C-alpha cells in the first residue's frame, strides 16, 4: 500500500457549515442536557434551591429501594413479553402477508394503522374498554364467562399485562413493516434454488429467510429495546404505574420521581440507569452481530 501523498484537502465551507451547524444544534439540545442529566444524578435537587452533591448516594439508594426493584422487574417482563411477542408476531404476520395477493394491502394497512395513532389517544380508548363496565367485561359476560370479569387496570395481578396489550397491538404493526421490507430484499433465486434441491417450507424458512434477515434483526432489536425502555405514554395513561406500583416501569418511576415527588437527582440517576441498560443491550448485540459477520 502506498502512502497517500500529503494532499492539502480544501474543505468546502458549505460542507463545513452542514457538519458544524447540526453538530452545534445536537450539542446544545442533546449532548448538553445529557451531560447535565448525568451531573444531576450525583446530586440531590428539588428543582428550586441549588443542587447538592451527594456522590453515588442516589445509586446506593436504588439498591435498597423496593419500588426500583419492582420497576426493574416489570421492565424486564415488559422487555421479554412486549419485545418477544412483537418480534415473533411481526415476523409471523410479515411472512403471512409477504406474497402479493388480492386484498393483502388492506390487511397490511389495517395492521399498520395503530402505529399512526397517538398512543395516548389509543390508551384512552383501551382504558374505556378495560373499565369495570367496559367492553371487555361486557363481552365476557355475554359469552357466559362472567367469572372472568375483572377490574383489569385496578387489579395488581393484571394491570401490567393489561398495559402490555395495547402497546403490543401497536408495535406488531411497526415490526411487521420492518420485516416486510427485509423479506422483499431477499433474492427470490435463493428460494428457487432451494425448491429445486427439494427443501421443505420449514427448511426454506430456517435456512434462507432467517439468515437473510440478520440485518433487519439488528434494527428490530434496537427498535424493540429502545421502545421497551422508553415505553411510558401507554403505561402512564392507563395506570400511572399503579395500583401501588404493580405496573411500575423504570420510565414511569422516573417520571413520578421527578415530577410528582420532585426528587430530580434521584430521577436523573434512574434516567442514567435506563440509558445504560438500553445502550448495553444494543451494543452487546451489535458487537456480536459484527463479529459474526467477520
Amino acid at each position, binding site marked *: 500500500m502506498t502512502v497517500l501523498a500529503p494532499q492539502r484537502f480544501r474543505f*468546502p*465551507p*458549505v460542507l*463545513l*457549515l452542514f457538519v*458544524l451547524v447540526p453538530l*452545534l444544534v445536537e*450539542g*446544545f439540545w442533546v449532548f*448538553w*442536557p445529557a451531560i*447535565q442529566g448525568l*451531573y*444531576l444524578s450525583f446530586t*440531590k*435537587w*428539588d*428543582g*428550586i*434551591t*441549588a*443542587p447538592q452533591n451527594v456522590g453515588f448516594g442516589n445509586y446506593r*439508594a436504588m439498591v435498597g*429501594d*423496593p*419500588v426500583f426493584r419492582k420497576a426493574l422487574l416489570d421492565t424486564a417482563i415488559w422487555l421479554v413479553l412486549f419485545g418477544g411477542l412483537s418480534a415473533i408476531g411481526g415476523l409471523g404476520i410479515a411472512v403471512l402477508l409477504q406474497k402479493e395477493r388480492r386484498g393483502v394491502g388492506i390487511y397490511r394497512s389495517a395492521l399498520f394503522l395503530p402505529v399512526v395513532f397517538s398512543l395516548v389517544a389509543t390508551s384512552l380508548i383501551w*382504558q374505556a374498554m378495560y*373499565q*369495570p363496565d367496559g367492553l371487555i367485561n361486557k363481552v365476557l359476560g355475554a359469552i357466559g364467562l362472567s367469572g372472568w370479569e375483572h*377490574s383489569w*387496570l*385496578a*387489579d*395488581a395481578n393484571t394491570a401490567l399485562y393489561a398495559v402490555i396489550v395495547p402497546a403490543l397491538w401497536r408495535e406488531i404493526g411497526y415490526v411487521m413493516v420492518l420485516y416486510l421490507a427485509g423479506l422483499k430484499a431477499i433474492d427470490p433465486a435463493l428460494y428457487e434454488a432451494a425448491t429445486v434441491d427439494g427443501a421443505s417450507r420449514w427448511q426454506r424458512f430456517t435456512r434462507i429467510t432467517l439468515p437473510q434477515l440478520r440485518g433487519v434483526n439488528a434494527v428490530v432489536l434496537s427498535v424493540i429495546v429502545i421502545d421497551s425502555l422508553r415505553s411510558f405514554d401507554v403505561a402512564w395513561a392507563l395506570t*400511572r404505574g*399503579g*395500583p*401501588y*406500583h404493580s405496573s411500575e416501569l423504570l420510565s414511569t418511576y422516573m417520571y*413520578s420521581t421527578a*415530577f*410528582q*415527588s*420532585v*426528587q430530580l437527582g*434521584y430521577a436523573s440517576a434512574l434516567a442514567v440507569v435506563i440509558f445504560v441498560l438500553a445502550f448495553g443491550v444494543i451494543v452487546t448485540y451489535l458487537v456480536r452481530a459484527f463479529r459474526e459477520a467477520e
Partner: protein
Amino acid sequence: MNTPGLTRRNFLAGLGMAGAAAALGGCATSVSGNSGQSGGAVTVESNLSSPQAKSAMQALIADYDKRGSTQASLNTVASETFRVQLPTYLTSANPPDVYTWYAGSVARSYADKGLLLDLSDVWHTMDDYSPALRSLSTDASGKQIFVPTDYYWWGMFYRKSNFARWGVRPATTWDEFITLCQTLKSHGVAPIGMGAGGSTAWVASAWFDYLDIRINGAQYHRDLLAGKHSFTDPQVRTVFARWKQVLPYFDPQSTAVQFQDATTSLLQNRTGMMLIGTFFADAAPKDALADIDFFQFPIIDPSVPVVEEGPTDGFFASRRSGHAAGTKDFLTYMATAAAQELYVKSSSGTVIPANPKARDAGTPLVAKGKAMLAKAADLTQFFNRDSSDALQPTADAALTQFFDKPDQLDSILSTWQAAATKVWSA
C-alpha cells in the same frame, strides 16, 4: 472562493452565540437572582380548568379590568400540568405574577424557599378575615404569603330519597355508622362508594385523614404528615384497624373508577353514600343536587376534639414579580366580598367565600356545610395540603394496596414510611 457565508468572523460569532445559549442552559440548575418583567398586565396563572370554574375566573378578570388602574391577564392551565410546572414557574427568571394554589403547609413550603411575595400589605385590607385563615396564610417568619378566596368541606354525601326509601338515618357515631352500613348492604346496595381509581387515587386519603383526626386528633395528624411521627406508629395502625372494620362495606369498584364515575354510581343508587368534597357537584347534573344531603364523618372517640377538613383555596404571588404593586392591587380585589360573590355566582356555587362579608350561594346544603365547619374545633386542609404535593403519591400507593391486601399492613406501612422519608429528605 466566492461562497458567501462562512467567514471566520461569522463562524466565531455563531460559536459565541451557541456558547451563550449553552451557558443559559446551565441556568436550569442554578437559581438566578433578580427580577424579570415589568410593565404590562398582571399575569394570573390559574389551574381552575373545569369549564364552570374557568368561566368564573374569566368573569372576575373582566370585572377587575373594568375598574381601571391595573390590567390582569388570565392563563388557564390543566390542573395536573399546573402542579408539575409550579416549581418551574416560580424559579424562572421571568415568572408569572399570581398563581391559584392552596393554603397551609403546601404554600409555606414555597415561602420557606424564598419564592413567594410578602402579601402583608394586602392583609391590611383584610382585617375582618378570621384569625384561623390569617394563620393559615402566614409563613414561618410571620409574613402573610397567601390570599384565601374560598373554602369547602368534606362530608358523607347521600341521596335523601334513597335514605327515606331504605328507612335509614345519618350516623353520628362509629357504631351507628357500622349499623348503617349493614342495613344498606341488606338492601342490596354497596354501602360506601369511593372513586380512588385512575387519576383520582388521592380521594382515598380523605378516609385516612378523617380516621386519623377522629382517633388521634389534628395535632398528631399534622405532625405525622410533617415527618415528626412514623407511619409505622401504633397510632397509625389503630387508624387502619378502624378502617378494616368497614372495608367489607366499600363498593368493590372503589379503586377501579374515578371519583366522577363514583358520583354517578351514588346518583344512580348503586352505592349508598360517599365521603367526598363538595367539588363532586361539578360532575353531577343540577337537578340531582336538590336530592343531595350529607352528614358529618362519624365520631369515633368522643374525647378527641371534633376537627373537620376544610380545604382553603386562593392565590399567592411570585417574589420575583416585576409589578409587585399591581399584583397586590389585584389580590386586594380578589379578597373583596364583591369579587368572591361574583366567583360563587359564576361557578357551581358549592364553595364558601373566605371573606366573612361575602354571601355564599345560600342553598341549605351550603348553609349546613358552613355551620359544620364553623362549629369545628380546628380545620385540617387535606393530605397533600397539610404536607406537600410530593407526599401524596406515597399515600396513594399505600392506601390502594391496603384496599387490596389489608392483611399485609405491616409491609404496606414500612414501605410507606420509607417512601415518605425519601420525600421529606429530598
